[in-house]
Protein backbone atom coordinates (compact mmCIF):
# COMPACT_ATOMS: atom_id res chain seq x y z
CA UNK A 1 0.00 0.00 0.00
CA UNK A 2 2.40 2.62 1.27
CA UNK A 3 5.38 2.79 -1.09
CA UNK A 4 8.22 3.98 1.15
CA UNK A 5 10.74 4.94 -1.57
CA UNK A 6 8.23 7.41 -3.05
CA UNK A 7 7.74 8.83 0.43
CA UNK A 8 11.48 9.40 0.99
CA UNK A 9 12.05 10.69 -2.52
CA UNK A 10 9.36 13.32 -2.02
CA UNK A 11 11.38 15.33 0.53
CA UNK A 12 14.15 16.56 -1.79
CA UNK A 13 11.49 17.54 -4.34
CA UNK A 14 9.65 19.56 -1.68
CA UNK A 15 12.75 21.44 -0.55
CA UNK A 16 12.54 24.38 -3.01
CA UNK A 17 8.93 24.87 -1.93
CA UNK A 18 9.92 24.86 1.70
CA UNK A 19 12.37 27.66 1.00
CA UNK A 20 9.57 29.74 -0.53
CA UNK A 21 7.35 29.05 2.50
CA UNK A 22 10.11 30.17 4.88
CA UNK A 23 10.94 33.16 2.72
CA UNK A 24 7.30 34.24 2.74
CA UNK A 25 6.97 33.83 6.52
CA UNK A 26 10.21 35.66 7.27
CA UNK A 27 9.33 38.48 4.89
CA UNK A 28 5.72 38.95 5.97
CA UNK A 29 6.11 38.86 9.75
CA UNK A 30 8.34 41.94 10.30
CA UNK A 31 6.21 43.99 7.90
CA UNK A 32 3.05 42.84 9.67
CA UNK A 33 4.52 43.75 13.07
CA UNK A 34 5.21 47.31 11.96
CA UNK A 35 1.80 47.77 10.33
CA UNK A 36 0.12 46.23 13.37
CA UNK A 37 1.86 48.62 15.74
CA UNK A 38 0.81 51.61 13.65
CA UNK A 39 -2.78 50.35 13.55
CA UNK A 40 -2.88 49.65 17.28
CA UNK A 41 -1.48 53.07 18.19
CA UNK A 42 -3.84 54.67 15.68
CA UNK A 43 -6.83 53.00 17.30
CA UNK A 44 -5.73 53.99 20.79
CA UNK A 45 -4.37 57.48 20.39
CA UNK A 46 -5.32 58.95 17.00
CA UNK A 47 -8.18 61.46 16.63
CA UNK A 48 -11.53 59.72 16.53
CA UNK A 49 -12.26 59.64 12.76
CA UNK A 50 -8.83 58.19 12.09
CA UNK A 51 -9.20 55.65 14.90
CA UNK A 52 -12.57 54.63 13.47
CA UNK A 53 -11.07 54.06 10.05
CA UNK A 54 -8.29 51.95 11.56
CA UNK A 55 -10.87 49.90 13.49
CA UNK A 56 -12.95 49.34 10.35
CA UNK A 57 -9.86 48.28 8.41
CA UNK A 58 -8.86 45.80 11.09
CA UNK A 59 -12.40 44.41 11.38
CA UNK A 60 -12.58 43.88 7.64
CA UNK A 61 -9.39 41.82 7.48
CA UNK A 62 -10.33 39.83 10.56
CA UNK A 63 -13.87 39.00 9.51
CA UNK A 64 -13.33 37.67 5.98
CA UNK A 65 -11.69 34.41 4.87
CA UNK A 66 -8.00 34.74 4.02
CA UNK A 67 -8.37 32.70 0.85
CA UNK A 68 -11.04 35.08 -0.42
CA UNK A 69 -8.84 38.06 0.45
CA UNK A 70 -5.95 36.59 -1.52
CA UNK A 71 -8.21 35.79 -4.49
CA UNK A 72 -9.62 39.29 -4.44
CA UNK A 73 -6.15 40.82 -4.51
CA UNK A 74 -4.93 38.36 -7.12
CA UNK A 75 -7.84 38.60 -9.56
CA UNK A 76 -9.76 41.81 -8.86
CA UNK A 77 -6.95 44.25 -8.15
CA UNK A 78 -5.25 43.82 -11.54
CA UNK A 79 -8.51 43.81 -13.50
CA UNK A 80 -9.90 46.94 -11.80
CA UNK A 81 -6.86 49.06 -11.08
CA UNK A 82 -4.41 47.84 -13.70
CA UNK A 83 -1.83 47.23 -10.97
CA UNK A 84 -0.18 43.99 -11.92
CA UNK A 85 2.10 42.66 -9.22
CA UNK A 86 3.89 39.34 -9.38
CA UNK A 87 2.02 36.54 -7.62
CA UNK A 88 4.50 36.39 -4.77
CA UNK A 89 4.21 40.10 -4.04
CA UNK A 90 0.40 39.94 -4.19
CA UNK A 91 0.09 37.12 -1.67
CA UNK A 92 2.78 38.67 0.55
CA UNK A 93 0.80 41.91 0.58
CA UNK A 94 -2.41 40.04 1.40
CA UNK A 95 -0.74 38.12 4.22
CA UNK A 96 0.70 41.33 5.69
CA UNK A 97 -2.76 42.93 5.71
CA UNK A 98 -4.36 39.85 7.26
CA UNK A 99 -1.73 39.09 9.89
CA UNK A 100 -1.26 42.74 10.88
CA UNK A 101 -4.99 43.06 11.56
CA UNK A 102 -4.90 40.16 14.03
CA UNK A 103 -1.65 41.36 15.58
CA UNK A 104 -2.91 44.92 15.98
CA UNK A 105 -5.94 43.69 17.91
CA UNK A 106 -3.55 41.83 20.18
CA UNK A 107 -1.32 44.89 20.63
CA UNK A 108 -4.26 47.17 21.26
CA UNK A 109 -5.69 44.87 23.91
CA UNK A 110 -2.25 44.47 25.48
CA UNK A 111 -1.64 48.20 25.74
CA UNK A 112 -5.21 48.86 26.93
CA UNK A 113 -4.85 46.21 29.63
CA UNK A 114 -2.21 48.25 31.44
CA UNK A 115 -4.16 50.25 34.03
CA UNK A 116 -4.20 54.04 33.52
CA UNK A 117 -2.79 54.42 37.03
CA UNK A 118 0.53 53.11 35.71
CA UNK A 119 0.75 55.94 33.20
CA UNK A 120 -0.40 58.49 35.76
CA UNK A 121 2.23 57.29 38.21
CA UNK A 122 4.87 57.75 35.53
CA UNK A 123 3.62 61.25 34.78
CA UNK A 124 3.51 62.09 38.49
CA UNK A 125 7.16 61.13 38.75
CA UNK A 126 7.93 63.77 36.17
CA UNK A 127 8.13 61.60 33.06
CA UNK A 128 6.90 62.97 29.76
CA UNK A 129 3.96 61.26 27.98
CA UNK A 130 6.43 59.56 25.68
CA UNK A 131 8.68 58.40 28.48
CA UNK A 132 5.73 57.03 30.45
CA UNK A 133 4.55 55.14 27.38
CA UNK A 134 7.87 53.61 26.42
CA UNK A 135 9.29 53.01 29.90
CA UNK A 136 6.18 52.10 31.88
CA UNK A 137 3.41 50.89 29.55
CA UNK A 138 5.31 49.12 26.77
CA UNK A 139 7.49 46.88 28.98
CA UNK A 140 4.43 45.65 30.89
CA UNK A 141 2.31 45.24 27.78
CA UNK A 142 5.11 43.37 26.05
CA UNK A 143 4.97 40.30 28.28
CA UNK A 144 1.21 40.09 27.76
CA UNK A 145 1.42 40.51 24.02
CA UNK A 146 4.48 38.43 23.26
CA UNK A 147 3.10 34.86 23.59
CA UNK A 148 0.16 35.69 21.31
CA UNK A 149 2.55 37.29 18.82
CA UNK A 150 4.67 34.15 18.79
CA UNK A 151 1.68 31.94 18.09
CA UNK A 152 0.67 34.31 15.29
CA UNK A 153 4.05 33.55 13.76
CA UNK A 154 3.28 29.81 13.78
CA UNK A 155 -0.18 30.58 12.46
CA UNK A 156 1.35 32.57 9.60
CA UNK A 157 3.77 29.77 8.83
CA UNK A 158 0.82 27.42 8.34
CA UNK A 159 -1.40 29.97 6.58
CA UNK A 160 1.19 30.49 3.86
CA UNK A 161 0.02 27.12 2.50
CA UNK A 162 -2.98 28.96 0.97
CA UNK A 163 -0.75 30.69 -1.54
CA UNK A 164 -0.37 27.36 -3.33
CA UNK A 165 -3.86 27.91 -4.77
CA UNK A 166 -2.55 31.02 -6.53
CA UNK A 167 0.40 29.36 -8.25
CA UNK A 168 3.01 30.56 -5.78
CA UNK A 169 5.42 27.63 -5.58
CA UNK A 170 5.49 27.08 -1.83
CA UNK A 171 5.78 23.78 0.04
CA UNK A 172 2.14 22.80 -0.52
CA UNK A 173 2.27 23.79 -4.18
CA UNK A 174 5.33 21.61 -4.81
CA UNK A 175 3.65 18.64 -3.16
CA UNK A 176 0.47 19.00 -5.19
CA UNK A 177 2.54 19.36 -8.37
CA UNK A 178 4.60 16.28 -7.49
CA UNK A 179 1.43 14.34 -6.80
CA UNK A 180 0.09 15.01 -10.30
CA UNK A 181 3.49 14.11 -11.75
CA UNK A 182 4.08 10.72 -10.11
CA UNK A 183 0.59 9.75 -8.85
CA UNK A 184 2.06 8.71 -5.49
CA UNK A 185 -0.67 10.70 -3.79
CA UNK A 186 -0.66 9.13 -0.35
CA UNK A 187 3.13 9.13 -0.01
CA UNK A 188 3.60 12.67 -1.28
CA UNK A 189 0.80 14.18 0.80
CA UNK A 190 2.01 12.35 3.90
CA UNK A 191 5.50 13.72 3.29
CA UNK A 192 3.94 17.16 2.96
CA UNK A 193 2.02 16.88 6.23
CA UNK A 194 5.13 15.55 7.97
CA UNK A 195 7.22 18.46 6.68
CA UNK A 196 4.85 21.00 8.21
CA UNK A 197 4.61 18.95 11.38
CA UNK A 198 8.37 18.70 11.92
CA UNK A 199 8.77 22.43 11.38
CA UNK A 200 5.72 23.76 13.22
CA UNK A 201 5.63 21.36 16.19
CA UNK A 202 8.74 22.73 17.96
CA UNK A 203 7.55 26.27 17.29
CA UNK A 204 4.14 25.49 18.78
CA UNK A 205 5.78 23.92 21.85
CA UNK A 206 7.95 27.00 22.22
CA UNK A 207 4.78 29.13 22.17
CA UNK A 208 3.20 26.98 24.89
CA UNK A 209 6.30 27.54 26.96
CA UNK A 210 6.07 31.30 26.41
CA UNK A 211 2.43 31.27 27.51
CA UNK A 212 3.32 29.39 30.68
CA UNK A 213 6.18 31.71 31.42
CA UNK A 214 4.25 34.89 30.88
CA UNK A 215 0.99 33.82 32.46
CA UNK A 216 -0.73 36.90 33.82
CA UNK A 217 -0.83 37.08 37.58
CA UNK A 218 -2.97 39.92 38.77
Amino acid at each position, binding site marked *: *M*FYWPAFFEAFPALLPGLLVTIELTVLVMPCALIVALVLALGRLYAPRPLARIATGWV*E*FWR*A*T*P*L*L*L*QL*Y*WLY*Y*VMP*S*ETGILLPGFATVAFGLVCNVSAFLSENFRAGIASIRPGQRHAGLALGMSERQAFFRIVVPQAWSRVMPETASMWVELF*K*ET*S*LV*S*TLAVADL*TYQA*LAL*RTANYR*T*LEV*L*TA*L*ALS*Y*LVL*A*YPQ*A*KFCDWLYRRHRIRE
Partner: protein
Amino acid sequence: MVDAFQIVRANLPFLGSALLVTIELNIASIALALALGTAMGIGRVYGGRWIDRGLGFIIDVVRSIPILVIMVWVFFGLPLLLGVTDFPAFLAGVLALGIHSGAYIAEIVRGGLGSVRGGQLHAALALGMSRPQAIARIILPQAAIRMMPPLSTRIVRNIKDSVLASTIAVQELFWAANLLEGETAKPFPIYTTLMVFYFLAIVAIARALDRVYVKVAVRGAA
Protein backbone atom coordinates in the same frame (compact mmCIF):
# COMPACT_ATOMS: atom_id res chain seq x y z
CA MET B 1 -19.53 49.08 -14.75
CA VAL B 2 -23.00 50.42 -13.94
CA ASP B 3 -24.48 46.98 -13.85
CA ALA B 4 -21.45 44.84 -13.24
CA PHE B 5 -23.37 43.08 -10.50
CA GLN B 6 -25.98 41.85 -12.99
CA ILE B 7 -23.90 38.70 -13.28
CA VAL B 8 -24.34 38.06 -9.54
CA ARG B 9 -28.08 38.74 -9.59
CA ALA B 10 -28.60 36.43 -12.53
CA ASN B 11 -26.89 33.61 -10.67
CA LEU B 12 -28.47 34.08 -7.27
CA PRO B 13 -30.25 30.70 -7.23
CA PHE B 14 -26.96 28.95 -8.04
CA LEU B 15 -25.11 30.86 -5.33
CA GLY B 16 -27.98 30.25 -2.93
CA SER B 17 -27.78 26.49 -3.34
CA ALA B 18 -24.01 26.70 -2.79
CA LEU B 19 -24.61 28.76 0.35
CA LEU B 20 -26.75 25.90 1.62
CA VAL B 21 -23.76 23.56 1.21
CA THR B 22 -21.58 26.04 3.13
CA ILE B 23 -24.12 26.08 5.97
CA GLU B 24 -24.40 22.28 6.05
CA LEU B 25 -20.63 21.93 5.94
CA ASN B 26 -20.24 24.28 8.89
CA ILE B 27 -23.00 22.80 11.01
CA ALA B 28 -21.67 19.26 10.49
CA SER B 29 -18.01 20.14 11.04
CA ILE B 30 -18.67 22.33 14.09
CA ALA B 31 -20.82 19.57 15.62
CA LEU B 32 -18.03 17.05 15.01
CA ALA B 33 -15.43 19.46 16.38
CA LEU B 34 -17.45 20.10 19.54
CA ALA B 35 -17.93 16.36 20.13
CA LEU B 36 -14.26 15.54 19.51
CA GLY B 37 -13.02 18.56 21.41
CA THR B 38 -15.19 17.91 24.47
CA ALA B 39 -14.22 14.23 24.59
CA MET B 40 -10.52 14.98 24.22
CA GLY B 41 -10.62 17.89 26.67
CA ILE B 42 -12.32 15.75 29.33
CA GLY B 43 -9.87 12.94 28.58
CA ARG B 44 -6.93 15.22 29.14
CA VAL B 45 -8.17 16.61 32.44
CA TYR B 46 -9.64 13.48 34.03
CA GLY B 47 -8.12 10.56 32.12
CA GLY B 48 -4.88 10.32 34.03
CA ARG B 49 -1.33 11.03 33.05
CA TRP B 50 -0.88 8.78 30.03
CA ILE B 51 -4.14 9.64 28.34
CA ASP B 52 -3.32 13.30 28.93
CA ARG B 53 0.08 12.90 27.27
CA GLY B 54 -1.22 10.82 24.38
CA LEU B 55 -4.08 13.19 23.61
CA GLY B 56 -1.79 16.18 24.08
CA PHE B 57 0.55 14.81 21.45
CA ILE B 58 -2.28 14.09 18.98
CA ILE B 59 -3.72 17.57 19.50
CA ASP B 60 -0.33 19.23 18.96
CA VAL B 61 0.22 17.20 15.80
CA VAL B 62 -3.12 18.28 14.34
CA ARG B 63 -2.50 21.88 15.32
CA SER B 64 0.91 21.86 13.62
CA ILE B 65 -0.44 20.93 10.18
CA PRO B 66 -2.19 23.56 8.04
CA ILE B 67 -5.90 22.97 7.54
CA LEU B 68 -5.42 23.00 3.76
CA VAL B 69 -2.92 20.14 4.05
CA ILE B 70 -5.24 18.19 6.35
CA MET B 71 -8.00 18.72 3.84
CA VAL B 72 -6.13 17.44 0.78
CA TRP B 73 -4.67 14.59 2.83
CA VAL B 74 -8.09 13.46 4.03
CA PHE B 75 -9.65 13.78 0.59
CA PHE B 76 -6.87 12.37 -1.61
CA GLY B 77 -4.74 10.32 0.78
CA LEU B 78 -7.09 8.75 3.32
CA PRO B 79 -9.24 6.82 0.77
CA LEU B 80 -6.06 5.26 -0.66
CA LEU B 81 -4.96 4.26 2.82
CA LEU B 82 -8.35 2.73 3.57
CA GLY B 83 -8.81 1.30 0.07
CA VAL B 84 -12.09 3.18 -0.37
CA THR B 85 -13.24 4.47 -3.73
CA ASP B 86 -15.78 7.25 -4.28
CA PHE B 87 -14.93 9.07 -1.07
CA PRO B 88 -17.37 12.01 -1.01
CA ALA B 89 -15.71 15.43 -0.94
CA PHE B 90 -18.30 16.76 1.48
CA LEU B 91 -17.46 14.05 4.00
CA ALA B 92 -13.74 14.77 3.60
CA GLY B 93 -14.42 18.46 4.21
CA VAL B 94 -16.45 17.75 7.35
CA LEU B 95 -13.80 15.36 8.69
CA ALA B 96 -10.89 17.70 7.99
CA LEU B 97 -12.56 20.78 9.46
CA GLY B 98 -13.99 18.80 12.38
CA ILE B 99 -10.64 17.26 13.32
CA HIS B 100 -8.80 20.55 12.89
CA SER B 101 -11.24 22.66 14.92
CA GLY B 102 -11.71 19.76 17.36
CA ALA B 103 -8.03 19.87 18.32
CA TYR B 104 -8.29 23.58 19.13
CA ILE B 105 -11.59 23.10 20.97
CA ALA B 106 -10.02 20.33 23.08
CA GLU B 107 -7.55 22.87 24.44
CA ILE B 108 -10.38 25.33 25.12
CA VAL B 109 -12.33 22.63 26.99
CA ARG B 110 -9.25 21.65 28.94
CA GLY B 111 -8.66 25.24 29.97
CA GLY B 112 -12.32 25.70 30.89
CA LEU B 113 -12.46 22.55 33.04
CA GLY B 114 -9.20 23.52 34.71
CA SER B 115 -10.62 26.92 35.63
CA VAL B 116 -13.37 25.41 37.81
CA ARG B 117 -12.01 25.18 41.34
CA GLY B 118 -11.26 21.77 42.82
CA GLY B 119 -13.68 22.41 45.68
CA GLN B 120 -16.59 22.14 43.25
CA LEU B 121 -15.72 18.55 42.42
CA HIS B 122 -15.13 17.68 46.06
CA ALA B 123 -18.46 19.19 47.08
CA ALA B 124 -20.28 17.19 44.41
CA LEU B 125 -18.54 13.97 45.46
CA ALA B 126 -19.33 14.73 49.11
CA LEU B 127 -23.01 15.03 48.16
CA GLY B 128 -22.87 11.44 46.89
CA MET B 129 -22.51 12.05 43.15
CA SER B 130 -20.34 9.71 41.14
CA ARG B 131 -17.33 11.18 39.38
CA PRO B 132 -18.91 11.19 35.89
CA GLN B 133 -22.07 12.74 37.36
CA ALA B 134 -20.07 15.43 39.12
CA ILE B 135 -18.18 16.24 35.94
CA ALA B 136 -21.25 16.29 33.73
CA ARG B 137 -23.59 18.14 36.12
CA ILE B 138 -21.35 20.39 38.18
CA ILE B 139 -18.06 21.04 36.43
CA LEU B 140 -18.99 21.05 32.76
CA PRO B 141 -21.92 23.52 32.97
CA GLN B 142 -19.77 26.06 34.81
CA ALA B 143 -16.83 25.51 32.50
CA ALA B 144 -19.03 25.74 29.40
CA ILE B 145 -19.94 29.34 30.10
CA ARG B 146 -16.32 30.34 30.56
CA MET B 147 -15.39 28.53 27.37
CA MET B 148 -17.84 30.53 25.29
CA PRO B 149 -15.66 33.48 24.18
CA PRO B 150 -12.79 31.34 22.81
CA LEU B 151 -15.32 28.86 21.41
CA SER B 152 -17.12 31.54 19.43
CA THR B 153 -13.76 32.70 18.05
CA ARG B 154 -13.12 29.11 16.94
CA ILE B 155 -16.58 28.76 15.38
CA VAL B 156 -16.02 31.94 13.38
CA ARG B 157 -12.63 30.62 12.38
CA ASN B 158 -14.22 27.37 11.23
CA ILE B 159 -16.60 29.32 8.99
CA LYS B 160 -13.69 31.22 7.45
CA ASP B 161 -11.66 28.03 7.00
CA SER B 162 -14.61 26.29 5.34
CA VAL B 163 -13.91 28.13 2.06
CA LEU B 164 -10.85 25.88 1.77
CA ALA B 165 -13.20 22.98 1.05
CA SER B 166 -13.46 24.53 -2.42
CA THR B 167 -9.96 23.15 -3.12
CA ILE B 168 -11.27 19.59 -2.79
CA ALA B 169 -14.31 20.43 -4.93
CA VAL B 170 -16.91 20.61 -2.19
CA GLN B 171 -19.57 22.63 -3.97
CA GLU B 172 -19.81 25.36 -1.34
CA LEU B 173 -20.08 29.10 -1.81
CA PHE B 174 -16.47 29.90 -2.67
CA TRP B 175 -16.32 26.97 -5.09
CA ALA B 176 -19.44 28.31 -6.81
CA ALA B 177 -17.94 31.79 -7.01
CA ASN B 178 -14.77 30.42 -8.60
CA LEU B 179 -16.79 28.47 -11.12
CA LEU B 180 -18.80 31.56 -12.00
CA GLU B 181 -15.62 33.61 -12.31
CA GLY B 182 -14.12 30.98 -14.58
CA GLU B 183 -17.16 31.10 -16.85
CA THR B 184 -17.63 34.86 -17.01
CA ALA B 185 -14.12 36.26 -16.35
CA LYS B 186 -15.69 38.94 -14.15
CA PRO B 187 -13.79 38.72 -10.89
CA PHE B 188 -14.77 42.14 -9.54
CA PRO B 189 -18.53 41.74 -9.00
CA ILE B 190 -18.28 38.10 -7.96
CA TYR B 191 -15.48 38.25 -5.40
CA THR B 192 -16.61 41.62 -4.07
CA THR B 193 -20.13 40.35 -3.46
CA LEU B 194 -18.72 37.31 -1.72
CA MET B 195 -16.41 39.45 0.40
CA VAL B 196 -19.24 41.72 1.55
CA PHE B 197 -21.45 38.71 2.21
CA TYR B 198 -18.86 36.90 4.33
CA PHE B 199 -18.04 40.08 6.21
CA LEU B 200 -21.67 40.78 7.12
CA ALA B 201 -22.43 37.14 7.93
CA ILE B 202 -19.37 36.69 10.12
CA VAL B 203 -19.82 39.98 11.97
CA ALA B 204 -23.49 39.10 12.57
CA ILE B 205 -22.65 35.61 13.87
CA ALA B 206 -19.84 36.91 16.08
CA ARG B 207 -22.14 39.58 17.53
CA ALA B 208 -24.92 37.07 18.14
CA LEU B 209 -22.60 34.66 19.96
CA ASP B 210 -21.24 37.55 21.98
CA ARG B 211 -24.74 38.60 22.99
CA VAL B 212 -25.57 35.10 24.20
CA TYR B 213 -22.39 35.09 26.26
CA VAL B 214 -23.15 38.45 27.87
CA LYS B 215 -26.53 37.05 28.95
CA VAL B 216 -25.17 33.93 30.61
CA ALA B 217 -21.76 35.21 31.75
CA VAL B 218 -22.90 35.96 35.31
CA ARG B 219 -23.68 32.29 35.90
CA GLY B 220 -20.12 31.32 35.02
CA ALA B 221 -18.50 33.70 37.47
CA ALA B 222 -16.27 31.89 39.93
